């Protein structure tokens, strides 16, 4: 993975000093609340319901065991012994003290970590496929381009105060696991007809209040121009994006208002004056960064002893759900589920973090990845070692065999932590997990994504969940609206609301009815989303609201 040199380190150290100064000026009343706000946000610091929340960047979801151990120490020392992995592959601490934040950042800097641009109206953490570099369906490893974009976007002077936040996602696989179409800029790297690395560029996607999938702005951009082209997009957005209304300030609204053709015309005009300029990248820079992501020392191990253990049912369930094929024969990638019903989805305790760091050291070259589904991944595990790993991870409750299944719920912090929430989301997730805790039944139901957001800001990506749950406020009480048919990946789509919303008590029963309806209509091994596409919403509506009955 990428390692800091003196330059990277000095930038991060200087940032710690800068932030410390800003906080001191704020505490001394030399900065007003309003003036301090954008500064603290660009350092990942929110002021939340109970305490500040600090969001730490995990660039494109990649962590070393040293870093994860440090995060564990920080959760013990400055927080309540746990952290929350987010859908943007970052980690959040819910209980730090404001005065401690400079010290936390200082400690993070010792392991090449920071909270730069994890919030606020700037270019955020670049996200990508959690299986980059190891998945057999990959065409080009997106990590080195992600790192190049990370460096370029860090403290980019022109884009330091955008109309609104700006998220970039990049994938290099035929199967998109980074939801590039739901980002301000989405990038898909591919190999063009001359076998040159090229990039398809989407712009103007995003969820939130106004869910919109991105539009293609460039079918085939040479990798050399990735930074200058992004600069042109961002300049047009920076100048013309709305700043008078924060709900209309995302680039998606601008693209929609102008139309993609007009928007593209403006971008191309801007690009003409900077194309081939100094920020054009060349092969030497690609190679320099690429070297950090070279293959680890894989063993040649064609045989494996997995057969010995297939009679162990829990192990084989885990094997089928939580391990993934690998480009190197003899290896698999492992997802450690953070979705047991005993914790909030995406939460990990300090002990769990240390255990995962140690497993990474023993079995996966000391590296860990965070997925946008809020789980942790060990990317390079020898098949021979899977059983051993499983036994150790089980002790830490990290082997719930539910990855990709109904209880692998993507969930925002919701009303328990977030001051913007209409409704709680974690207890909803836990009650659904409790209801579907029979692993056999869960495996029979098969692949399905359930996403929960506590309000229309959509941090839990409910629009692209096969089942989406959205917290809504009705006369001051908490209700939940249900959408069906959302999807991520290459066939991304936005789910449709099925009807009036439900109370917290009704909700588990409703999910049960939806699942039974699916089981009743499903063809053979058909998965939920395909069934919904085939039969439409009507059968589900009838199951939930009753037939043709007038809704009161």
């Amino acid at each position, binding site marked *: 993975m990428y390692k800091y*040199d003196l*330059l990277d380190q*000095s*930038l991060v150290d*200087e*940032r710690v000093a*800068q932030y410390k100064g*800003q906080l001191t000026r704020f505490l001394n009343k*030399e900065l007003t609340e309003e*003036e301090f706000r*954008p*500064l603290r946000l660009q350092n990942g610091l929110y002021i939340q319901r109970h305490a500040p929340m600090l969001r730490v960047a995990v660039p494109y979801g990649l962590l070393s065991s040293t870093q994860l151990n440090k995060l564990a120490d920080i959760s013990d020392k400055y927080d309540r012994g746990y952290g929350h992995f987010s859908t943007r592959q970052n980690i959040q601490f819910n209980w730090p003290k404001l005065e401690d934040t400079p010290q936390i950042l200082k400690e993070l800097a010792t392991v090449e970590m920071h909270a730069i641009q994890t919030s606020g*109206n700037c270019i955020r953490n670049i996200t990508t496929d959690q299986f980059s570099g190891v998945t057999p369906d990959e065409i080009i490893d997106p990590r080195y381009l992600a790192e190049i974009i990370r*460096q*370029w*976007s*860090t*403290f*980019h*002077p*022109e*884009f*330091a*105060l*955008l*109309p609104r936040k700006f998220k970039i996602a990049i994938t290099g696989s035929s199967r998109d696991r980074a939801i590039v179409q739901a980002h301000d800029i989405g990038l898909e790297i591919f190999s063009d007809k001359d076998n040159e690395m090229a990039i398809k560029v989407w712009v103007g996607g995003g969820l939130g209040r106004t869910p919109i999938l991105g539009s293609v702005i460039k079918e085939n951009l040479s990798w050399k121009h990735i*930074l200058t082209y992004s600069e042109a997009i961002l*300049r047009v957005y*920076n*100048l*013309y994006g*709305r*700043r*008078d209304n924060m709900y209309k300030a995302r680039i998606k609204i*601008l693209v929609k*208002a102008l139309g993609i053709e007009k928007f593209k015309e403006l971008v191309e005009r801007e690009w003409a*004056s*900077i194309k081939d*300029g*100094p*920020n054009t990248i060349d092969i030497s*820079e690609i190679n*320099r960064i690429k070297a950090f992501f070279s293959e680890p020392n894989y063993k040649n191990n064609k045989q494996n002893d997995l057969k010995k253990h297939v009679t162990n049912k829990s192990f084989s369930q885990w094997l089928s759900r939580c391990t993934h094929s690998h480009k190197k024969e003899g290896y698999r990638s492992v997802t450690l589920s953070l979705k047991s019903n005993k914790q909030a989805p995406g939460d990990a305790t300090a002990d769990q973090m240390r255990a995962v760091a140690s497993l990474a050291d023993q079995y996966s070259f000391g590296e860990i990845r965070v997925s946008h589904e809020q789980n942790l991944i060990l990317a390079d595990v020898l098949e021979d070692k899977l059983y051993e790993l499983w036994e150790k991870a089980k002790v830490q409750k990290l082997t719930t065999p539910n990855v990709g299944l109904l209880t692998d719920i993507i969930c925002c912090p919701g009303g328990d932590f977030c001051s913007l929430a209409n409704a709680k989301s974690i207890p909803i997730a836990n009650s659904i997990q409790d209801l579907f805790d029979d692993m056999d039944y869960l495996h029979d139901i098969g692949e399905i994504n359930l996403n929960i957001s506590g309000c229309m800001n959509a941090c839990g990506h409910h629009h692209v969940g096969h089942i989406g749950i959205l917290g809504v406020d009705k006369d001051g009480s908490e209700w939940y609206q249900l959408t069906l048919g959302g999807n991520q990946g290459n066939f991304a789509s936005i789910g449709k609301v099925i009807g009036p919303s439900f109370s917290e008590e009704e909700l588990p029963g409703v999910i049960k009815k939806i699942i039974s309806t699916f089981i009743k209509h499903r063809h053979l091994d058909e998965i939920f989303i395909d069934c919904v596409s085939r039969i439409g919403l009507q059968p589900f509506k009838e199951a939930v609201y009753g037939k043709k009955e007038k809704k009161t």
Partner: protein
Amino acid sequence: MSSQLIINNSIVDDEWQLVMPPKADEEVKKQAGKVVMFKLTGEGSLTNEQIENTIFSKNGKVILPVGVFLHHQKDLKNRISKQEIGIWMETHEEIDSFINEINDINLLPLISVRVKKFADGRIFSIGNLLRLKYKYKNELRAIGDVLRDQLFFLKRSGFNSFHIREDRDAKDALLGLNDFTTPYQGAVDQKQPAWKIIKR
């Protein structure tokens, strides 16, 4: 009273007088979606009446609103050649909308851009465009809600002159210019990205 003006790296006295137009009779709100882009946000521009009624001193160095400058350009030839005339623009004004009406922007010794609110980052793109696309070489000044924590970015976006908001200490703000030693990306002040100029 000490000065609020930073040019390059020091606090200096301000030789210029900033000229403000009179307030408009009524807020001019433009419709969304018309030809000029900034109208999307409904931000007003100067009315002809405001332009005609703007008064400024007959001698000495003055910074005129762009609209006022264009209106008087012909009569000001003499003063322009004496380097007495600068202009200022708002962040929602489009450079393209006036640049062709000015013979040569490098005849202007000063261009100022006013940022009304700290969080308005359009000023950075404007600096970049003036310097790199329109090749403006003289003093480029940030005015308005200009505070310490913008300075590093403003400098990198081509500004070399900063009028710090009246209630803040310019000496303190000066420190902001050096928040970071070697940034990653090429911008206006240092055009080459770090990887091209130092061995990494």
